[in-house]
């Protein structure tokens, strides 16, 4: 019995974190936010050397054959650095192909993702929350309609998406029948787009229909990774708050010696530590007890969203006016936590789904 990270896991996380410190510092993030998208390319290139795209690809297809826990640790490091690096969409697509794809599809796509000749985007928003008349209708191997908040579609070659009946599809993003428009969000570290399809050719994954287990599993992975991303972002915000409180003086003493500030930091830590344990446990169960994955993912993401909202605000308050400015850049974390909260289901939606999964609704 051991509920702790292995040496390998710790090494993986620290190597990602170390690389990010060099190639994805706050300065880099600021440049990306200012529109220098080539910086993102450089970050992705540096991370590619660590094998992030290969992480979830089975060894039989040339990958590292690691699991959701390792992916969550990587994502936590990305959140810690509010890194613009591509990872989440590719992880979701990999999982979908592994779960839903035929053997032939797996043999075709997984090695291509593994070597980087295919870069995957993901558009699953409408499988959770349909707004603005969005949704893709599948007919005779083609998709028609629109999907919002496609992740990383502007730089990917292919897309994982789902139709209104829950079937998963892969789409070549160079198809001329696709119109892509950027969607600007508060979180300038991620690129979302709207995709409009007009009888766009799509390859259905496996023979799955509505509410397929593969879709549920893919969503579960996405939610666990978003929870991990928020965890990392919170950890950094807490660390920054403690450092600021220990250094900033008012009324002749460091503000961290005032009980009000001290307790704000203590409350953040008190919420964050169990939250970290929950993220680890969810990811571990995703790999070891798949039947628990969907529930745990809903609980982990909804809980981390609530903790994240608290930490984002409280850390900003500890920083006083400085937290509100762009000078320390705290808002990049604040906004990433805010965006994570809404994608693939806000807390209320996820808790309702958790109730359904347990037969409580």
């Amino acid at each position, binding site marked *: 019995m051991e509920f702790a990270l292995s040496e390998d896991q710790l090494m993986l996380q620290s190597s990602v974190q170390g690389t990010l410190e060099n190639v994805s510092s706050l300065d880099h993030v600021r440049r990306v936010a200012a529109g220098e998208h080539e910086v993102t390319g450089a970050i992705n290139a540096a991370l590619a050397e660590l094998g992030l795209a290969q992480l979830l690809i089975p060894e039989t297809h040339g990958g590292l054959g690691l699991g959701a826990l390792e992916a969550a640790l990587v994502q936590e490091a990305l959140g810690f650095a509010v890194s613009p690096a591509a990872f989440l969409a590719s992880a979701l697509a990999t999982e979908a192909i592994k779960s839903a794809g035929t053997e032939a599809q797996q043999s075709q796509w997984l090695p291509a993702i593994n070597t980087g000749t295919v870069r995957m985007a993901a558009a699953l*928003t409408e499988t959770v*929350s*349909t*707004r*603005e008349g969005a949704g893709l209708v599948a007919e005779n191997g083609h998709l028609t309609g629109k999907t*919002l*908040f496609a992740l990383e579609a502007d730089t990917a070659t292919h897309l994982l998406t789902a139709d209104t009946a829950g079937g998963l599809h892969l789409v070549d993003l160079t198809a001329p029948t696709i119109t892509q*428009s*950027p*969607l*600007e*969000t*508060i*979180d300038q570290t991620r690129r979302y787009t*709207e995709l409009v399809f007009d009888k766009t050719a799509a390859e259905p994954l496996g023979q799955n229909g509505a509410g397929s287990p593969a879709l549920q599993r893919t969503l579960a992975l996405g939610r666990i990774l978003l929870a991990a991303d928020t965890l990392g972002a919170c950890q950094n915000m807490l660390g920054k708050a403690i450092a600021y409180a220990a250094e900033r*003086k*008012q*009324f*002749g*003493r460091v503000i961290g010696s*005032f009980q*009000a*500030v001290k307790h704000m930091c203590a409350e953040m830590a008190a919420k964050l530590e169990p939250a970290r344990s929950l993220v680890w446990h969810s990811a571990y169960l995703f790999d070891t007890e798949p039947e628990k994955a969907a529930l745990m993912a809903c609980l982990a993401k909804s809980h981390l969203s609530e903790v994240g*909202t608290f930490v984002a*605000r409280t850390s*900003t*308050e500890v920083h*006083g*006016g400085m*937290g*509100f*400015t*762009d*000078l320390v850049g*705290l*808002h990049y974390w*604040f*906004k990433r936590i*805010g*965006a994570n*909260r*809404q*994608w693939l289901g*806000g*807390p*209320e*939606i996820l808790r*309702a789904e958790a109730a359904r999964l347990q037969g409580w609704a």
Partner: protein
Amino acid sequence: MDLALSPEFETFRAEVAALLTANADKAPTSADRGMKHPKRLAWQKFLIEHGLTARTIPTEYGGYGAAPDILQSRIIAEEFAKSGLPRGLAGQGISMLVPTLLELGTDQQKADWIAPTLRGETIWCQGYSEPGSGSDLASLTTRGEIDGEDYVINGQKIWTSTAKQADMIFCLVRTEPDAKKHHGISYLIFSMDTPGIEIRPLVDMTGAANFNEVFFTDVRVPRSQIVGEPGKGWQVANATLTHERGMLGDPNAAEARLLAIAELMKTETLNGAPLIDNPLLRDRLIRLQAEVYAMQANGLRVMTARLKKESAGLAGLIVKLQGCELNHELARLAIDALGELGVLYGETPYIKDNGSWQWRYMYDLGLIIGGGTAQIQKNIIAERGLALPREPRLAKA
């Protein structure tokens, strides 16, 4: 208790409403950019002449000269809200400097500055906070050394809104470095064109530069440009800080926000159903409605106390803390209700209400922090309102 207005006030309301309706064409629109756009200045002049702004400022200083009447002020505010027309100017010059000069300025200062400020011809900014002096404002270190007939000012201010547009600044400067912290500060007014002033915009989390940093390098200000006595600037400034605190936490703004969210939830859909059909979102909405109504009723209590020239006590002390928090929570609900659409920001498809919910969510957090953080507010409530002891003095390290 009687919340009805007496007939004279209903008459007054009708007059204000008629005046606004008849002159709506004079009002500037958002297309008339620039704080000194001729249409804006003309509108301000019209409003002053008809007592719809600068109402209680004496006519000798360019105001309308009416006796203070809180109900009339409230009626004017309500009628502006109904009409949708822009209100009179309310920059820091008008809301903070003018009351200060009226109370503590010399005759010359009043004559020089109040009228052009009211007319919008002279725009002011405030130089109080410094990077090292936020909650502990009295620890400010920008210094003014006497050299002949001038103060020579060196140092830095922060959180200065409209610094770029301002003609003048009212500024706290430490002129007597050996005096105790709350003494030795002077309140100076000077032109933003004085040599040695540098302005750097301060971008904040909303993405805009709502504030600036202002740097002073050997800025020479004649000693006559002091308000009040040398070394008494802290007391001068506190008179106006009171004005600033009173401005925050407007309960009518909170109700408008609540109604906007209710409307949003009735029109926007999630998975085909209006958001208002979601019992969880609805429950949050109603929970906040109760708080909005509570703050509104509390505002009536505070206003009644002012009418009677009594202290509103605790009911007044809690306004900033509770009001800012409530507005922040309202914005949070709107964002959560909109889900993915709630994080859109900037000029982008599908954005709702121009992204104002995100803007408010962030800006309100700034308000929770600014002008006395939530922690400072709780100290004030506990110490002044509940008579709990102040933070004890520390032993020397």
